[in-house]
């Protein structure tokens, strides 16, 4: 563990980061910024996994594996989302959430 730092302090950071991400997710209208808020949310969860692994179950690296898989899933998700954004821009010349009112063509 980190000397002098309690689990609660780490959880505070990750919780605030998570809710900052939620705020961005709700208020932003641009698809790319929504995606960036999503990254903040995912990272808040990943910090939690690492902190729990370090402080509560130091003998098994389960939390590290969860974080590893989370990073891989996030990479896949971003690749797909960027593809969708570029396709949308090509079709309707806009990436605003409000202008995207159809998913089929």
């Amino acid at each position, binding site marked *: *563990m980190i000397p*002098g730092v309690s689990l609660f302090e780490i959880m505070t950071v990750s919780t605030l*980061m998570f809710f900052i991400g939620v705020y961005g997710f709700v208020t932003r209208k641009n698809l790319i910024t929504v995606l960036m*808020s999503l990254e903040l949310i995912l990272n808040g969860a990943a910090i939690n996994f690492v902190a729990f692994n370090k402080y509560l179950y130091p003998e098994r690296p389960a939390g*590290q594996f969860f974080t590893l898989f989370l990073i891989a899933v996030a990479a896949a998700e971003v690749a797909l989302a960027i593809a969708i954004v*570029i396709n949308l821009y090509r079709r309707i010349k806009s990436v605003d959430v409000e202008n995207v009112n159809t998913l089929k063509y």
Partner: protein
Amino acid sequence: MEKIVFYILAIAILALSLLSVLSQRLLRSAVYLFGVLAAVAGFYFLVGYNFLGAVQLTVYAGGIVVLIIFSILLTHEIDHKMERPSWLRAGAAGLMCAAGAAMVLQLLASTPLTRVDGPENSDLDTLGGLLLTPGEGGYLLPFELISILLLAAIIGAVVIAKHKLGAGSENQENQPL
């Protein structure tokens, strides 16, 4: 010493993520996000999970942020300025998030989280071995599943982002192999 580093990282994470969510300029927002991800990688290094920190730096900070910046540059003017969300929407969202954070923190504070001091095995040999171990305590199945997921995501991204070609070349593509 570690305590000071942790507090610096915590302040950097919170300040940069706030800036990233509030900034009106897309490109600056992405750069702030890069700072957040790098600070999180620093946190992983601080707790001693070096492999995880390296993965975070290469995949997140190196890969995902570059991808996001590329997509911003492809779809927007470089000094594109977004309009602010309306006060009602920002206020309601802020209130909701503050309430949620307060609830979670209150719950955390009332939960006894006792620290366990045990032997650690988080070196790269152990991680690599467990990643290829089937059965009890191993992570072979999720490892294989994630590789299939990544393959599917690559193919899906190519199919979705592919430029629609004319009818002639379309036929050529659909020929059986």
